[in-house]
């Protein structure tokens, strides 16, 4: 039933996108304008798999727009010390053999086989049907085993009491948290804050979309260019892929 609805929605999206393709300035923004999110009352569907494609050749060294946007959107203070949380961070790379420099944003890779979910004793770490890996902070006991298990250092532990709460993103001391792929925006049909900020800064290094939808821009890009996943040797099948690594 819900699959059918999704298919209809997808067809609608395809036609709508095609109709305005001519006047589209930023294809990445199209989805944001025309998708209206999942209908209220409907659970996330496994026919969808949300993911990102990060183009390191478009990502500018020194630019921190995605990090600031995430921090603002989700109400975590930008890091100063080694105990501060970081849902997303900029990593600067220098190829050892050639010295080629690049930069990329690093966050939860939303694995298909997430080790954090495997090791969590209380099922607080879980993967939603649409592939988004989340921490249910109501269940998190703060054991940090997921932080030990994550190959990407994507998770942070809240070391201090949280005083300023954001309405959309509850946070609390003693629990583990990480990138939610801006699930509260995605459910409304929006895109993650980092994607929006990157586009606004004119870089468009992050492409967000449904990896299962053959008509989505992200699907077509991944089909046409060489992409790679981080620590692909572990076979975790992350939802985030990279160009130019």
């Amino acid at each position, binding site marked *: 039933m819900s699959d059918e609805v999704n298919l209809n929605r997808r067809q609608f999206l395809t036609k709508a996108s095609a109709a305005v393709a001519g006047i589209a300035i930023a294809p990445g923004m199209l989805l944001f304008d025309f998708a209206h999110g*999942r209908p*209220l*009352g*409907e*659970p*996330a569907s496994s026919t969808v798999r949300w993911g990102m494609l990060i183009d390191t050749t478009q990502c500018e060294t020194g630019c921190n727009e995605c990090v600031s946007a995430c921090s603002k959107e989700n109400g975590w203070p930008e890091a100063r010390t080694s105990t501060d949380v970081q849902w997303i961070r900029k990593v600067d790379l220098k190829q050892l053999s050639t010295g080629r420099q690049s930069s990329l944003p690093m966050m939860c890779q939303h694995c298909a086989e997430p080790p954090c979910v495997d090791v969590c004793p209380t099922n607080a770490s*879980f993967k*939603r*049907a*649409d592939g988004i890996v*989340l921490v*249910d*902070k*109501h269940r998190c006991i703060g054991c940090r085993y997921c932080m030990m298990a994550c190959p990407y250092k994507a998770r942070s532990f809240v070391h201090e009491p*949280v005083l300023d*709460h*954001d*309405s*959309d993103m*509850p*946070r*609390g*001391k003693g*629990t583990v948290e990480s990138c939610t792929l801006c*699930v509260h925006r995605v*459910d*409304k049909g929006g895109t993650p804050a980092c994607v929006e900020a990157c586009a606004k800064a004119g870089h468009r290094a992050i492409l967000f979309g449904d990896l299962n939808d053959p008509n989505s821009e992200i699907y077509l890009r991944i089909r046409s260019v060489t992409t790679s996943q981080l620590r692909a040797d572990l076979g975790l099948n992350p939802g985030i892929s990279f160009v130019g690594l």
Partner: protein
Amino acid sequence: MRIVLFILLLAITSAWAGSLAPKLDIGRGGQCVDDPKFMRKNHMKMIVHQRDDTMRLGIRGGKYSLAECVNCHASKKDDNVLGSSEHFCQGCHEYAAVKPDCFECHSSKRKAVAEAAK
């Protein structure tokens, strides 16, 4: 005689208890999502049930939303459900001697207009 005394005692204590009942600032108030009597007794079960549905299954737009509780019942003075014995959540929970766990992580403030437009 004993019965009379007992009834008298009961009347006095209940009157006394009545005077102790919290005087709550119900904020905007108005029509609640469910019968107030039912909500008074069961709001925590409803919120927890919907919390699990929203968090784990991704079902949005259910009627028992904590954020909406706060939106309606935050004091009009400071947009908060906590702060004093008159504030909606704190006042009643103090009266019932139950510690609400929600606001250690969730915002106790009415969603600002600017943030709602985000």
